[in-house]
């Protein structure tokens, strides 16, 4: 979760909270955790999916540069987050087979659509409660089924 504040005189908002589940530095699996299997429900044909997490331990690094490059400026504050993300609709269906050496190595069938989220968190002396799901919006969203790595023979 990325929380910002628009301070007086600023043209752009300043990030004041960066909640992610990894200890610094995130050089392995990137900000990725395992969840129970029932955390995800998906109906690809309808373009719908739900992702839920409850009391997921996180660290608040304050901002992304600290989360990626410094790790202790300020020192991360432990907390937990619960969230529900809902994907819906079908804006576009795409089949991708990407063999690009940088960006690729996978194939899949994807639906580009929209997503919304509601979440709560507790971090140090702060609690966070988002507005209801319906008030949020997505800049980009997609769901799909893909195969990569050893499940994606490129030969």
């Amino acid at each position, binding site marked *: *979760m990325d929380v910002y504040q628009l301070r007086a005189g600023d043209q752009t908002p300043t990030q004041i909270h960066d909640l992610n589940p990894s200890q610094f530095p995130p*050089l392995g*699996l990137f900000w990725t*955790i395992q969840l129970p299997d029932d955390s995800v429900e998906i109906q690809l044909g309808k373009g719908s999916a739900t992702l839920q997490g409850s009391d997921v331990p996180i660290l608040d690094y304050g901002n992304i540069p600290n989360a990626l490059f410094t790790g202790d400026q300020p020192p991360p504050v432990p907390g937990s987050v619960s969230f529900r993300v809902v994907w819906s609709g079908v804006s576009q269906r795409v089949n991708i087979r990407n063999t690009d050496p940088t960006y690729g190595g996978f194939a899949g069938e994807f639906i580009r659509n929209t997503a919304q989220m509601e979440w709560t968190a507790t971090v140090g002396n702060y609690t966070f409660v988002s507005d209801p799901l319906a008030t949020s919006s997505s800049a980009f969203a997609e769901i*799909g089924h893909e195969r990569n*790595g050893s499940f994606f023979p490129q030969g």
Partner: protein
Amino acid sequence: MSLRAIAAWKAANREVGAARQPAQGITRRRFAGTAAGAAFLGGALGSGLLKPGLAQASESFAPVPIPGGTPLLNGMYHFFGPAAIDPIDAEPITITNLNGFVGLAYISGMVTQTNTQTGETLRLPFINSDMRFMQGVFRGADGRIHQGTFALV
């Protein structure tokens, strides 16, 4: 994770960004090439199986990170930002050797922050929070096939 924030920060700090690397002395290739690297921060597996936990060193069947990463961060971090900082058709997930369902979204909205000590509340925006899931079968660091569900938060 707001990917656009990364791009903006990188643009504003090109020299600093190039000079500052985490975990001095640990190269991406060297780190990812080891079992420890593959498992590092690898989800709350093992004793915390199916219980969310802070990502940390995990059991041998941990999923393996994708081999590359966004060029914006010199490939050091094993993720891409499709349609944000990378091409729209870039790899959307963080785990390799996966055959399964995936989802990705950059979501914005409003949140109320409450200081539990003072009672002060602030209305704040959350901007382009990056949320992803991966669910299916994967070949873990142990070389075997497993079933699992993962999220990037």
